[in-house]
């Protein structure tokens, strides 16, 4: 198994997603009522650049995990295109098996994602053997990787998943993801189930591995603090669409979308003298079965105007590599806070 080569050069995005859509049909009842579709991901475009960490945040049901599963082709998209380093995934140039060697994934549930009947050494060595590496070499590499993620092979290699703690199991999952020497790793809530002190250890490990192996990360989490800390850029999703995307610091310091602002002000204050007095958003995230018309956030938005329920906002640049899908930023959109078209021109 050779190391994987960069194809399009550093300037070409590693991953380009265009018009990604996933609708899950709902079952009809015996009388033919119901039906309809869950619009889990509904028109998502973004790029992941080589060597960066793109963080993805949003409430449950916003489509962040579905997006990850679509990228890995674990589920087939309804529509849309996934281009990996200039080549279409699943096309003749980049068959699925080859793509999956280059992109690996780590899941939230460290226990469910390991085979309980394989020792952790065998789990880590399994992938490379599927891709044609001999057993002895695969096991040797597995032991190296286990040592690299902080699990001494002499002590741990022969153990089964149930004999490890949650943090240790997640290290095994990370080692397994790296066994194929991928170029990109998708981390879907990979540290969310861990205790804070263990989470910090695993985050440090992820940052070290990224530097050592030149990896690109897609880091999905609901923990806004952790996402800011690990990400170069952050994408905020709401009901299957991208609300805002931009450099981590710019997005956290000056969020352009009202939803991002609400999300950020929902973080606990950590200050006993200035506790949060009012929740930024009322109610639960709405259901992606019948999403609101126009801007999907308008029923919960503090800045909503009549036009917001009619017009679907397009992403508008609000800074360097920073875009928000909000009519407030769209000149001539008809929103009272937007710049009128005549003056903008």
């Amino acid at each position, binding site marked *: 198994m050779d190391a994987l080569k960069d194809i399009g050069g550093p300037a070409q995005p590693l991953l380009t997603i265009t018009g990604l859509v996933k609708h899950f049909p709902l079952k009809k009842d015996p009388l033919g009522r119901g039906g309809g579709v869950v619009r889990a991901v509904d028109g998502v475009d973004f790029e992941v650049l080589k060597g960066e960490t793109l963080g993805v945040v949003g409430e449950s049901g916003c489509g962040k995990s579905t997006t990850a599963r679509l990228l890995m082709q674990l589920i087939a998209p309804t529509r849309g295109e996934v281009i990996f380093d200039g080549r279409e995934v699943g096309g003749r140039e980049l068959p699925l098996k080859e793509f999956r060697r280059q992109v690996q994934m780590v899941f939230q549930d460290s226990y469910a994602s390991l085979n309980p009947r394989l020792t952790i050494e065998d789990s880590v060595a399994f992938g490379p053997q599927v891709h044609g590496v001999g057993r002895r070499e695969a096991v040797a590499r597995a032991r190296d990787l286990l040592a690299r993620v902080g699990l001494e092979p002499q002590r741990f290699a022969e153990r089964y998943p149930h004999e490890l703690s949650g943090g240790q199991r997640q290290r095994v999952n990370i080692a397994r993801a790296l066994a194929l020497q991928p170029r990109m790793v998708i981390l879907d809530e990979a540290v969310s189930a861990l205790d804070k002190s263990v989470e910090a*250890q695993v985050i440090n490990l992820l940052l070290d591995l990224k530097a050592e192996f030149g990896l690109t990360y897609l880091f999905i989490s609901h923990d806004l603090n952790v996402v800011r800390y690990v990400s170069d850029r952050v994408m905020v999703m709401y009901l299957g669409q991208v609300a805002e995307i931009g450099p981590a610091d710019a997005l*956290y310091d000056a969020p352009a979308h009202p939803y991002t602002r*609400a999300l950020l002000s929902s973080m606990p*204050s950590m200050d006993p003298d200035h506790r949060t007095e009012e929740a930024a958003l009322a109610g*639960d995230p709405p259901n992606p079965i019948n999403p609101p018309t126009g801007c999907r956030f308008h029923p919960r938005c503090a800045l909503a105007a009549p036009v917001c329920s009619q017009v679907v906002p397009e992403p508008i640049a609000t800074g360097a590599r920073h875009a928000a899908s909000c009519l407030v930023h769209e000149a001539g959109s008809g929103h009272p806070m937007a710049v009128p078209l005549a003056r903008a021109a």
Partner: protein
Amino acid sequence: MTTMNHPTSSSSEPMVRLRDLSVSFSGGRKPVQAVSGVSLEVRRGEVVALIGESGSGKSVTLRTLLRLHPERRTRIGGQVQVAGRDVLAMPARELDDFRGKVASMIFQEPLLALDPVYSVGAQIVESIRRHESVSKAEAHQRALALFERVRIPSPERRLAAYPHEMSGGMRQRAMIALALACKPQLLLADEPTTALDATVQIQILLLLRELQRDLGLSVIFVTHDIGAAVEVADRIAVMYAGRIVEEGTARELIRSPRHPYTIALLKSRAHGALARGARLETIGGAPPDLSALPPGCAFAERCALATDACRAAQPPVVELAPKHRARCIHTDAAAAIAPTLVA
């Protein structure tokens, strides 16, 4: 009964008094010492947060207050008093009256805590009528008022809903309504916001704070999230390996933590002020095995300040300020490594 038999009526009496509580579970290969010597008082109208990582004993401590552990496999030592009553000595009948009426609990996962085959309204009505002799119609009216109180939109319709028909935040509100149905004096909250989105978590935390204030409840709030604890608690107790290692007002605990474990916990959080690329400070190693606890401080193995004295014997509780205590012999040295977190 006379007032003398009813210490509940004395207002100086703390709502909860735990004295040297120890809980161990047998049944596995080796007995597990989940709680070893917890003493804690909660005054009337006070909110105390118990924070700690998995296996620290925070939930076990909380569940002991309602005696929810399987009787045959659990050994409980020490004293547990709630509203002046000895919980460990209660006969089964009295315990049934006590649960829900004096002390009530909300859980992390309402979908597991609520009965899936009854509507939420029916469960509240049942709970009210178990404890009070009121008519069905009257109990229903009270259930409706409770749903309005916890701000469930269109409450009349939602009373008829089954738990699976509600969203996560709504279910948590319904469970709070159920817990408050019989006007308890003590609310025990076991990670009630952990499974929720941040936007919903803050709503539930604010609701709990408001209900606590309006109803004068005493609350014990168990969480692993310091941020959530700071939002609701007057006092915070930090648990590690079955012991309270530090206890103080929320302000003191955040501003001047003195136990190395509290300090390490605060430092290991990724937070806004942290530069990207700077390494997170971690606590090396893992929590100790509860079936083979060391004789000395359980944190010593992972502690940068540990000395031989720490490993030899249990460190005593050091009084640092009124209401601020830590179980550590190096609190002065710990002060030097404490983070300056908030402005």
